[in-house]
Structures are given as C-alpha cells and as structure tokens.
C-alpha cells in the first residue's frame, strides 16, 4: 500500500512540474532547453519544424494572413507535427516541449547567414502572431506577465475616464466596439512606433494601447530578441560544440543540407546552448 502510495505521489509531482515548465500554449523562447535527447529525436524535431515553417511561408503567400481560411489551414499543419498552438484540455506538455526544442535546434541552423536569419525570423513571427491571435482574452495577461513584458490591461473605470482621449488617439480603434476593447498601459518607451506618429494616447509617461496595437509591439519585441539571439548563436556555432566526437551527421531533408556537418554521437547528444 505504502509503495503504491509513494509511486502515486511521484507521478503527481512530475505532472505539476511538467506543467510549470510550459505554462502557456505559446512562448517567446527565452530559455533554451536543457535536457538530453536522442539523435533521432533531434533530427525529427528539426525536420518537423522546418516543414512547418515552410508551410507558414506558403500559406502566407497563398492566403491573407489572419483570415479564417489561413488560420484553419495553419492549425491543421501544426496539429500534424504535434506542436502546441492552442490550449486544450489534454496534456499539453509534449507538444509544447516539441515546439520549444525544435525552435532552438533551428536557431543553430538558421543563424548562419543573413538570408537564413531573415527567413527564419519572418516565419517564426507569423507563427507567433497566429498563436497569439487565438489566445483567449483571459490568458493574454498571464502570458505577457510570464514573458516579462510589463503590459497591464487597465480596469474599466480607468478606461472610461480616458475614453475620449484614447479613441481620439488610436487609429486601430475606429469601427470597433469600445466596451469590448482591452486597453493596456505600458511605459511610453515600449511603444516607440506608436507614439512617434502620435497613434496612441500618452499620459504621465504611459501609453494607453488597445489590444490590436499590443500585438504589434509584442511581435516587435520578439523580433528584436530573436535577432539578437541568432547573432549570439552564430558565435557558438562557429566554435567547437560540446558534442562527443564519434561520427558525422548529415540530416536528410533538403533544407537541413545547408547545415554544416556537426560531429555527434550516435546514441545521445547533450545540447549546450
């Protein structure tokens, strides 16, 4: 009895810990993964994500981004590779983990040239934009907070107080229902592209930003961070990796063939980022 009790406790802990690793269906990839994975999984994750990003690129060309058709097709593709995109009732750990690790693997590959960097950033941004757009309103606040973005949605009383000013300042609010709009209060310097063109209401050092404009800011933040990260990744890729040297790996898909050969074991690799 005691034995099985202990086992039950262990599993429960594991479940909580796993959920804590990935509290949201999307992320900014701020922390690199730190686990051992098999070479086969490494390769498969990389291939899956490359496939997905290529689909993101093609869909972006064939359909208008953000439309229902675009979104349903993209959703189907993400399902295929079993990456996370939406909060479900099922266990989300595995899809989120796959999403996380695959992103970081691709950083190693796509940091290597200006063209590759640009392509990678563009597709990752479109993917993030999609995921953000289907995030339920009540989850947005938590996600922003956990991503260390100090964006606070203001309460209704504060909103009403500034209704005239915010509506007069934000072009993105024309034609929307004021009552349904979330407005975020952020330090003015975080809303540079908005305030420089007087497209947002400023008061006492804060910008009052409607949700639509927050998305643009969030994406810009993401692009800046990813750009920096790729520049850093380039330094590491050029240096000897901490892989145990037994053989060489050539990855099979055409995109991956652009990668330089990386010495790895055939059993396990430890990824140091």
């Amino acid at each position, binding site marked *: 009895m005691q034995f099985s009790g202990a086992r039950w406790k262990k599993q429960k802990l594991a479940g909580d810990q796993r959920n804590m690793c990935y509290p949201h269906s999307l992320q900014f990839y701020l922390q690199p993964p730190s686990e051992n994975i098999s070479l086969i999984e490494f390769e498969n994750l990389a291939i899956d994500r490359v496939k997905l990003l290529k689909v993101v690129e093609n869909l972006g060309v064939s359909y208008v981004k953000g439309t229902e058709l675009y979104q349903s097709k993209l959703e189907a593709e993400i399902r295929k590779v079993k990456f996370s995109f939406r909060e479900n009732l099922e266990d989300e750990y595995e899809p989120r983990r796959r999403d996380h690790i695959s992103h970081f693997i691709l950083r190693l590959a796509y940091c290597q040239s200006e063209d590759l960097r640009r392509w990678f950033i563009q597709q990752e941004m479109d993917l993030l934009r999609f995921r953000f757009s289907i995030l339920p309103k009540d989850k947005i606040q938590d996600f922003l907070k956990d991503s260390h973005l100090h964006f606070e949605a203001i309460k209704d009383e504060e909103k009403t107080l500034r209704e005239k*000013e915010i509506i*007069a*300042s934000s*072009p993105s609010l*024309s034609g929307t229902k004021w009552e349904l709009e979330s407005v975020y209060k952020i330090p*003015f*310097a975080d809303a*540079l592209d908005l*305030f*420089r*063109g*007087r497209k947002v*209401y*400023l*008061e*006492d*050092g*804060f910008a009052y930003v409607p949700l639509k404009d927050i998305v643009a800011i969030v994406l810009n933040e993401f692009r800046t961070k990813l750009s920096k990260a790729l520049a850093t990744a380039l330094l590491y890729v050029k240096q000897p990796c901490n892989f145990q040297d037994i053989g060489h790996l050539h990855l099979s898909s055409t995109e991956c063939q652009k990668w330089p050969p990386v010495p790895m074991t055939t059993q396990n690799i430890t990824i140091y980022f």
Partner: protein
Amino acid sequence: MEAFDPAELPELLKLYYRRLFPYAQYYRWLNYGGVIKNYFQHREFSFTLKDDIYIRYQSFNNQSDLEKEMQKMNPYKIDIGAVYSHRPNQHNTVKLGAFQAQEKELVFDIDMTDYDDVRRCCSSADICSKCWTLMTMAIRIIDRALKEDFGFKHRLWVYSGRRGVHCWVCDESVRKLSSAVRSGIVEYLSLVKGGPDVKKKVHLSEKIHPFVRKSINIINKYFEEYALVDQDILGNKESCNKILALAPEIIHDELQQVFQNHHSSLQRWEHLKKVARCLNNIKSDKYGPWLEWEIMLQYCFPRLDINVSKGINHLLKSPFSVHPKTGRISVPIDLQKVDQFDPFTVPTISSICHELDAISTIEEEKGENKAESIIKHRTRDYKKTSLAPYVKVFEQFLENLDKSRKGELLRKSDLQKDF
C-alpha cells in the same frame, strides 16, 4: 544697462569666472547627488576660446578643478556634452571603440530663425518683443507635453542668450534614453513640416490627437494679441495672400471678399473663421475648424531641431554661459513667470560686472577688511547682482532634483527592507 562691447570680453570673462559664475550650484547639478560613481568626471565639456579656438573632450575631477580650469582658460563659450564611459580628457588612451557616450539629458533647442517665414517684424538673428511670444508659446506647449504626456519631472528652460530657448530634461530615466526614443519624442512634438519651398506646412486629420488639441488651446490664449495685433497677419495684401495660400481654392473667392469688406486683422480673422468652418473634411464629410487650426499652428506652433535632441553625444550651450555677440548670460527661465520673461532685461556680462564693481567700491569705502571681503565675495558675489534671481530659479530646480533622489533612495531601501 551697461552697453556691451565684445572687445571687452576677455576682461569681463575673467571677472565673471572669478567672482560671479555659480560653480557650487553648477556642480551640484551635474554631479546629480554623487549617486553614480564618476558621473561628473566622465562628462564632456567643450570650450570655445578667444579667436574661435574650439577644444572638445574637456573633463574635470571635481568642482574646484572645474573652477581652476575655467579661470585659467577663460572660455568665450561653454558647451555641455554627454557622460562617457571614460574620462573624456583621456579618450585618446582608450582602446578604439571602447570610448562611448552613455548618458545625457534630453535637450531641445528652439531658435527664432526657424520661424522667419511666419514673422513679419524681424528676421534671422533679430528678435523683438512682438515675436518673442513665439518662444513663450513654444515653452508652454512643449513643457506641458513633456510634463503631462511623457511624465518628465525635471525640466530646466534656459534663455540661449540671443534668439531662442533651450530645454534640459534631467530625470534619471531620461538621461538613459536611446537615440531612437529621443527622435521619437521630437517626432511626437512636431507638427510643422516642410522647408521653405513648402507653402502649407500643417495638415490635420479628422481625428485630433489630445496633444494637438491641448496645444491649440494654449495657442488660443495668445493668438489674438500675438498674431492679429502684434504680427498683424492679415494686415495687408501680401500677408493676406500668404494666408490665402493655405486655404483650398474653393473658398479663395469668398475669402477675398472678406478681405475687401473688412480691414483689420481682427475682423478679417473673425470672418475667415466663419468661412473656413463651412468647409468639410474631405474624408469624413464633417464640418469643422481644421483649416482655422492649421493656420494657427503654422503661425504659432513650435519648431524643433531634431538633430539637437536625438544625438546622445550632441553638445549644447551651457546654462550661465555668456553669449559672445550679445553679452547676455544664458539664464534659467522661471516657468511660473514665463509670460513676463523679457529677453531684453536679461543681464549682460558687462552689466553684472559693472554692478559688482559698484558694490566693491561701496564696500571699500565702508572700510571693510580686505581678507573678510575676499571670503564674502567668493560666496555671495552673484547675489549682489541682477544674476541673483536667476540663480534662485536654478536652485529651485536643484531642490526638486534632490527631493526626487531622496524619494527614490527611500523607495529602494524600503524595497530592500533596509531600515
């Protein structure tokens, strides 16, 4: 007031730097409470010496070092630059690329020559009481935005000494702002766009941003007296045509009628407004005062030089510096009394030196002990001259900085539970 003769500058400056320049307050400002190590020591100053010799990358160890050097070199002009990563006077010893500008106040320079297309009384370096109102309006509009929209608390406005004003925004967070954000702030504050070849420089959309609305409210307070009386912007055919060029063709005939039927700027403006308000906004089909506002803004709204504000390493004339052509001291402007500020009553270096001489003579006659006098002089000389009220304004500004710093330190120690 004593007439200023530029030839006397070397002698006057000697006296000014020895007995009148407010070193203690100046150091108190730029040291910012000594909270950051070497903040003063890493600050760049530049001096313009006699015969236009310009030297950059001056830096000083402390107040007494600053005093000694200024008295030794007797600069005609002093500029303040950025706080760098290393002592500017040692920048040649630093590894290439490592010597970087790190922080600086956010500064604005508003110059009367930028308004030559809209003022009739003067042009270029000249100013008069009729056009000085442009500076008054500029200070009110920009200061309101810096304070209420951006939340900046420590703003020092200074008369440039000839034809404009400067603003130094000294909040701690502001000194760290990037060049991109500084540019963005100038863009936010800009409404008048286009060079001499552009006739209509202000275009308003249907939605009026609160910044624009509040600026128009300020201009409204001054417009009648400044534009319609002093500048007389509808006073003759030439000036009426200038305004006509800002209006759409369809109302030109109506406006010409107005100009024929009425003869003062005041009356013409009243009727112009009536005609203009019947115009509808092309995009929205709404009728409104946009044209009227566009004219007011073109004639009165401040014009900023973005290059002065955006660069962290840009050097700007120092407060309490002397203007070599006019002899006027760059004095702080009391925001509480901005409407009364008169650049023509700002003390010149000759006048305050003269005042000092007169007082010294009186004190000698009173038979004061020479040694006593010297000590007294060093600490209170400027107080005996017309410079005193301006130093007081500066001290109030420094008090506010101190208060903020104390408040910030308390807040930080509270957070760390440091009692």
